[in-house]
């Protein structure tokens, strides 16, 4: 589903964030990307969302090289990627329902679809009873669930989560992981960048370890594997 080939990334300030990275993610995979700060996790994630263009190499999603997309095609790519951030990024003046509905509204979904799919998404993350509350009335874990619901409501093929549990205590974090696992079981591919070793150990999923801008280890459920495609 995602083929990253010989990708290097040098920022305009000269920082060489990724060096010749090869990585392949199959449809339905759950992949942790771990590594120290500055190892290149965020860069990798941003490249997949096409926030940046790599200095070298190609990134194919469903066979389509996203480094060659035209400007107007980028939004179409993003409709198939749900993004979850460490700092939630919710609209605090809107209700939970409205926050999730917003993601559908802005890509032109009909009111009928919105009324059908938003409750489904909220149910999947266990927030059906909080639909009318505002984000600031919720706990951190609940806010992150709203983000999850917002990320999945457009039924993307891929969820990208950048340190989604970074601001949460371990118990709440595990709840978020359960929700993510739930989403993954339904067929959505998940790529998650994280620092949290205990989560990675508990989940027993594929782990890609980045160090100094290179993949230093790619471990599939306890076994080492070739990280290329």
């Amino acid at each position: 589903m995602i083929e990253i080939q010989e990708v290097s990334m040098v920022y305009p300030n000269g920082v060489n964030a990724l060096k010749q990275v090869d990585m392949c993610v199959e449809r339905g995979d759950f992949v942790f990307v771990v590594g120290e700060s500055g190892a290149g996790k965020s860069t990798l994630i941003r490249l997949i969302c096409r926030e940046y263009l790599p200095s070298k190499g190609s990134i194919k999603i469903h066979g389509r090289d996203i480094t060659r997309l035209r400007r107007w095609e980028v939004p179409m790519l993003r409709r198939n990627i749900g993004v979850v951030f460490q700092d939630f990024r919710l609209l605090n003046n809107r209700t939970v329902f409205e926050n999730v509905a917003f993601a559908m509204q802005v890509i032109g979904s009909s009111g009928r679809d919105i009324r059908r799919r938003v409750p489904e998404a909220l149910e999947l993350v266990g927030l059906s009873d909080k639909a009318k509350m505002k984000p600031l009335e919720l706990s951190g874990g609940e806010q992150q669930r709203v983000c999850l619901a917002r990320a999945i409501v457009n039924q993307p093929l891929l969820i990208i989560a950048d340190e989604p549990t970074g601001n949460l205590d371990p118990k709440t974090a595990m709840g978020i992981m359960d929700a993510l696992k739930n989403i993954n079981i339904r067929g959505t591919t998940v790529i998650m960048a994280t620092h949290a070793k205990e989560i990675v150990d508990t989940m027993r999923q594929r782990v890609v370890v980045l160090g100094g801008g290179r993949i230093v280890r790619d471990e599939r459920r306890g076994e080492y594997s070739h990280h290329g495609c």
Partner: protein
Amino acid sequence: MSVMSGGGNTLIMAVRNWVYYIKEAFSSIIRNGWMSFASIGVVTVTLFILGSFMLLNINVEHLTSEIKNQVEIIAYVDEGLVVDEVDKLRVSLIQMEKVEEVRFVSKQEALIRLQSQLGELVEGYSEDGRNPLRDSFEIRTIIPEDISEVAASLQAMPGIARVDYGTEVVEKLFRFTGAVQWIGLAFMIGLALTAMFLIANTIKLTVNARSREIMIMKYVGATEWFIRWPFLIEGVFLGTIGALIPVVILSYLYGQTVGWAKLNLYFLPLVSPEIVIEQMVRTLFVLGTFIGGVGSLISIRRFLKV
């Protein structure tokens, strides 16, 4: 499923999107009540000044063209010339390239004119032989600015005694009107840019306040124009309202001024309101919507980069 899949009925989606844009634009105007008010105020003040200046400029232009059209050369004929020679002179004057009109004024005619202007003061001169005036030609040029050149060549012609065209006055007038027009133009451009800058800044505040929304919109795949339209509509609307106010006030004030001038300053030829106001309304509305629209596009540009 393709990576590029979109979907839905295009027409229904377009209508739905436009309902969304307009709703967003107006709810933003209301939500940012004071900011919207300030934007309208800025455009209103700017366009008010601009409109006033425009009215002034149109009238100055009108006035100078009136004066320019009245500017003429008077060429006095040598006293020794006989009638035939004077007529030849007239023909050669008419044939000059830059001359539009030549009119012969006999010394008798000149005296009658003078008498009608000065009355009793020149009464004793009416008998033949006591007329101190000369025959002359009144000459208009096609372009008023050519007057000094034509006057110089007339001066050199045999049979012409003296040329008079109020040299300094005319040249000063031309220099002055030219300067007024250039200063006016520069002033107008400066004001329009200022207004655009101010409205861009005002909308930037709105955009800033909504930067999180814009970011989310980008992440979930809203198109750039989907993000832009509400701000563009907001800017254009603020600009239009900002133009409407000075249009109404200036139209009223100008009508009143022309009415007053007709009674009190009848020698001052002001351009009639119907002509001026139409031109002003068009200019101010075009400028208002342009300033608002461009201002909002400028302020949102930075946020669309990702």
